[in-house]
């Protein structure tokens, strides 16, 4: 029996056990990963796993179970347990499964890793860093190929298959000279192939050069309100935080979202156009199926500062009466602006180039605070010096309203395509 047939059998078994609606998702994954530690290639991992989630709905009650054993005996046990969990749940009329869509198979990327090329690329990376950035210490790095096949079926007739394979590279590093050491930093990117050298991927060259310049950091001059230029590596976290407290299930269901009445209204600077494009060609991995069983679509979230969609699941949409999101978010693409980064820097009277933000989880009202890591002090349009022990505080919603410039240049992370974004009104403080 193939895995797809087994997944169908699970759907039938749930129906026979009394489920009024059911959903079964079986993902089979194989990852090959090369690990570098303190500049030396130390470990190769091969991991095989399954992720099989069975969900049942009965009398408006919903229960689910996830196992990683894919055989008939495990199926029988899982079905019995998920029906017990479902019966024990409290009823909620908003629970449902995705409506019928035409059966479809999605494919992206290679099926198997090229182990020899992986090794060659990683070896070339360590040598290139040693040559171009001799003061950089590579604390750790991982280059992996992850291949997966997902079968998504439900009792409304949804029948999707997605086969994906991508290379993912992440690296953590600092600079060291004598007893001086820069703050550690990290970055990474995803790609469908290894045609290019790893050092050319994402923002790596920029960040390694900045780490090298960060060996003698100083504190920002006192406390002031200034402009922050948010670097692409840092921007993605701010986007997830902003959207997480405003347009996703929890804040909209509970009514705590400050964007709950803002659909088709301004929520950000008119300079900002933000899209989530999980099935776009510029996104290497992405995803084809939403968590609740719909074919994922690209969506513009904010167009010229206007909120165009919420990112509600089927449950969230049923609960709030608002439209379901076209996707699950992520795969962010921001439209570039007319100015180059150098021009944006020239326009800053006093502020920061914020390369990494290490902060507490933002409040539900958007307040945030934390350390400006691996960042640089800006004054009179010039990058002055690398920073240490400097904190920033502000409000996410105000920050995105106060955007003053978006760069022409964007970093292609594979999983996102992001520019530098300048915004005003952030409190910057050092001892």
């Amino acid at each position, binding site marked *: 029996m193939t895995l797809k047939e087994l997944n169908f059998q699970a759907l039938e078994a749930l129906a026979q056990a009394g489920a009024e609606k059911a959903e079964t998702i079986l993902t089979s994954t194989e990852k090959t990963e090369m690990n570098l530690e303190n500049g030396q290639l130390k470990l190769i991992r091969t991991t095989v796993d399954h992720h099989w989630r069975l969900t049942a709905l009965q009398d408006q009650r919903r229960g689910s179970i996830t196992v990683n054993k894919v055989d008939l005996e495990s199926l029988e046990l899982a079905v019995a347990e998920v029906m017990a969990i479902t019966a*024990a749940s409290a009823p909620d009329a908003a629970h449902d499964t995705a409506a019928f869509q035409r059966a479809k198979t999605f494919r992206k990327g290679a099926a198997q890793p090229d182990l020899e090329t992986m090794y060659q690329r990683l070896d070339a990376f360590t040598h290139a860093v040693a040559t171009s950035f001799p003061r950089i210490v590579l604390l750790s790095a991982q280059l992996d190929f992850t291949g997966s096949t997902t079968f998504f079926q439900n009792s409304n007739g949804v029948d999707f298959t997605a086969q994906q394979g991508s290379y993912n590279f992440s690296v953590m590093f600092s600079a060291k000279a004598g007893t001086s050491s820069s703050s550690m930093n990290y970055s990474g990117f995803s790609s469908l192939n290894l045609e290019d050298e790893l050092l050319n991927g994402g923002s790596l060259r920029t960040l390694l050069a900045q780490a090298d310049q960060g060996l003698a950091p100083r504190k920002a001059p006192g406390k002031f309100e200034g402009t922050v230029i948010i670097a692409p590596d840092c921007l993605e976290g701010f986007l997830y935080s902003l959207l997480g407290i405003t347009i996703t299930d929890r804040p909209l269901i509970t009514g705590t979202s400050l964007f709950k009445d803002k659909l088709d209204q301004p929520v950000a600077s008119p300079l900002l156009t933000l899209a989530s494009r999980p099935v776009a060609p510029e996104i290497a991995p992405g995803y084809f199926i939403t968590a609740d069983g719909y074919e994922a679509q690209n969506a513009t979230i904010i167009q010229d500062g206007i909120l165009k969609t919420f990112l509600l699941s089927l449950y969230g949409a049923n609960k709030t009466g608002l439209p379901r999101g076209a996707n699950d978010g992520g795969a962010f693409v921001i439209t570039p602006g007319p100015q180059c980064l150098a021009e944006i820097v020239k326009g800053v009277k006093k502020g920061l180039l914020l390369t990494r933000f290490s*902060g*507490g989880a933002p409040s539900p009202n958007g307040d945030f605070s934390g350390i400006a890591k691996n960042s640089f002090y800006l004054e009179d349009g010039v990058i002055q010096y690398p920073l240490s022990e400097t*904190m920033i505080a502000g409000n996410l919603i105000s920050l995105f309203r106060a955007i003053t410039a978006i760069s022409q240049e964007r970093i292609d992370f594979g999983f996102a395509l992001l520019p530098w974004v300048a915004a005003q009104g952030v409190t910057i403080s050092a001892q």
Partner: protein
Amino acid sequence: MNTNLFSYKHLLSAYTELRCQENNSLVISFLQGDNTTNTRLTTSGVSARVYKKGAWGFASHPEISDKGVRFVLDTATRNSNFLAAKEPQPDIPLPHGGVTTDRDTPEPQNQLRSEDLVPFLKEIDHYIATKYPRISSRTVSLNCSELKKTLLNSDGVSAYSYLPRSFIAIGMTVEQEGAPVRLQELFGGRGQFTDLFTAPEALFSKIDWLYEHLMRKREGIFAEAGLKTCVLAPELTGILAHEAIGHTCEADLVLGGSIAGSHLGHPVASPLVSLVDFAHTALGATCPVPVVVDDEGSAAQDAVLIDRGILKGFLHNKESARHFGVAPTGNARAFRFSDEPLIRMRNTAILPGTAKLEEMIASLDDGYYLMRPSNGQADTTSEFMFGVTLGYEVKNGKLGRAIKDTTISGMAFQVLQTVSQVSQEFKWISGGMCGKKQLIPVGMGGPALKCQVMIGGR
């Protein structure tokens, strides 16, 4: 799961670890009274890690069977051979971990199921909804988890460990001038649900406490940004010990240039400060995350990092212990069956002192009393930060207005030099999950500290 791996001992030729593991979790969540989640997750499998000529190979497979074991041994060996051929290193053996066998008590059989737990949570939710109608949003979530591991290594070490943890998280949100203000608290710790929770009513007084603080936080002010003298409650000291010192003293980060590397044997803190990463027992009691044998098969030892202000040591796996010429401390830990062991903390704590918390607050002329942390992060420079979700300003020794969510930061070795008082009161935070490539459960503990830190604000 208590798999006998001895039948595969003859297949372990090079240095090899063979591990079977099962992770279980049960999650039940209520949002605004609706039962949004009721799910169980079970993952299990077998992994092998092989060390040959300085190269590691690892493989994992979900089938705990003869086929699965042979697959992981063959694949891990192939990976190790590939790497050893490409990157030849001296063939120096790893140190023995100083243990032969250890077995935790097997897990109890009669555990509560969803049909028992859903009404329990529903009653808690009902209490909040009826007693506190001003709440604009509420969440009640249960997370019960288990880690079961069976290990055999080629040195002949065998071990079985079992770690159950159960937590109820309660979150409440109120509105202030149209904007949400939230406070959350985690209850529970190591043990089965029934070991930790007797009846919903037992949590009601804690919910009342949370609500009182939430209403004060609702009127909260921004902290004044800058360097401030603060009293950190024990709940914050634990995360300070973990983020600020523990990570800095992980031997892999020391080898990567952590500032701790150049401070061994030197003063890094006030003489009032002693800090230990406990293996399994501390201050006469079992720790939140007891580790008797680590995932390389080393006996877990208490690792004294700071003794009365002097930096004394680091956290080690076998390979880093060999590098530094010390015994392994038993800090090699893996979270899932498909994870390789990394150097991780276990139960990291600053030891209690002699002051009283009330007197410490009373001695503060102008500063903050910080009570509850959120997430944190560390750096090899020893610069740390963590979020603060509950705190109060202190003026002339008296608690004043609550403060809004903020973040504190500092250079750990500088901040710890400013510690002027350490309380008798000591608490563990048991719900910690540390992220370093993989997640791992950790314990974090400490007394209250009076010290100077940077606080984020306006």
